[in-house]
């Protein structure tokens, strides 16, 4: 058979293509040369080489006469989807684990509470514990649904000018009691009355609440020393940054890079959805969020930045 006509067709194809006779390359189109980064004509080439040179390329071949034609299909999308699926499976496994765990606590405490054979000095504590786990479970389910909705792109934000001053003071007012119970001092420096950022009201409040909740929670866990959370602001030309600084338990350097992943919690109470959700929301508002710590017991600082609304 004459490979002339074959060549012409193959040259025009956008996917990598090789024609081998025995072990020798008789023809390679430019796409194949690009992919394998060399001139192939006349070379001996093993199937293995084809495989190893391009991990996202899957070679299919068929025989025509004494020739073997290789076509390279780009399967990077398949790999991406496989990774995506793997991530989802993991998310599902952890989510069900967390829900089952909390349910086990609620069921267990309540079953013991109503069990007449169990004699305890302060039996009502069992019901109180069940109640507090139930509250956590309800927050967890909300977080899970929120996360999934954001991931699926279903959470639509309404971006509008927001008065930082008013919103933050309301949030701080809400958290004061919590901070007080946890023995943490909460300071907020004053923010310019007029200052307005671009954001979605609910999302902004959610983010600030998560960040402040973390700051208070992880500061109260410190054994000794000052327990203080400070919120401060800085304006720049395009926006404003909000700094939430605490004197809490800090973060080990090797953990820092994992904190914005799902279920990254290193605390027995949390599940590790707070920061992931916050980051996604901040990005949807075209802002930025980052977390810094010099190490264990060195405190933590969360830096947020939001776009400013035009006056």
């Amino acid at each position: 058979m004459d490979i002339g006509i074959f060549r012409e067709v193959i040259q025009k194809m956008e996917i990598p293509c090789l024609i081998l006779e025995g072990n020798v390359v008789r023809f390679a189109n430019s796409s194949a040369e690009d992919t394998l980064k060399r001139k192939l004509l006349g070379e001996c080439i093993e199937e293995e080489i084809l495989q190893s040179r391009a991990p996202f390329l899957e070679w299919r071949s068929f025989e025509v006469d004494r020739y073997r034609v290789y076509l390279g299909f780009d399967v990077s999308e398949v790999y991406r989807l496989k990774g995506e699926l793997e991530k989802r499976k993991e998310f599902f496994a952890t989510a069900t684990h967390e829900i089952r765990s909390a349910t086990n606590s609620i069921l267990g405490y309540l079953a013991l509470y109503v069990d007449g054979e169990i004699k305890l000095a302060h039996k009502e504590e069992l019901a109180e514990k069940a109640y507090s786990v139930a509250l956590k479970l309800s927050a967890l389910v909300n977080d899970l649904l929120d996360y999934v909705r954001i991931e699926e792109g279903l959470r639509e934000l309404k971006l509008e000018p927001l008065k930082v001053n008013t919103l933050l003071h309301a949030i701080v007012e809400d958290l004061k009691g919590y901070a007080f119970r946890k023995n943490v001092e909460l300071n907020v420096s004053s923010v310019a009355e007029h200052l307005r950022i671009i954001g979605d009201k609910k999302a902004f409040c959610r983010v600030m609440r998560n960040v402040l909740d973390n700051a208070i929670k992880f500061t109260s866990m410190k054994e000794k020393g000052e327990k203080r959370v400070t919120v401060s602001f800085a304006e720049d030309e395009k926006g404003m940054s909000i700094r939430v600084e605490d004197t809490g338990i800090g973060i080990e350097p090797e953990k820092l890079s994992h904190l914005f992943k799902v279920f990254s919690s290193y605390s027995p109470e949390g599940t590790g959805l707070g920061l992931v959700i916050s980051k996604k929301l901040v990005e949807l508002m075209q802002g930025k969020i980052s977390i810094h710590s010099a190490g264990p017991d060195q405190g933590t600082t969360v830096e947020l930045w939001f776009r400013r609304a035009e006056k």
Partner: protein
Amino acid sequence: MKKLILLVEDNPEHAEIVQIALTKLADVEIKWAKDAKEALDLLKEGLKPQLILLDYRLPGMSGKELLERLREMEGMDAKVIVLTAEYISKAELMEDGCNNALLKPFLPNELIAKIKKYLR
């Protein structure tokens, strides 16, 4: 003589529930280890439980790994009941070599019924 049960469980709420539930059984003593390492240390020190209640998702060494270690350990004749909230079936757990398994959420009385079978 008191029968000894070793509970390996990182979730303090679950551990508390099991401990309270087991007060319903006479002559049972329970020892709580928060992770696999603590459990192994106790066993190395000579603790001889009749029964081990083992959570599967533990920080550090997993419950599954600990189960494998237990099975290789000389003179280890404790029965093992796995308690887990993982997305897994009882059949799969049995294949891993435990004697019995209970999926969370469970009722304390279900656990007690299972435990009774293994305490002579």
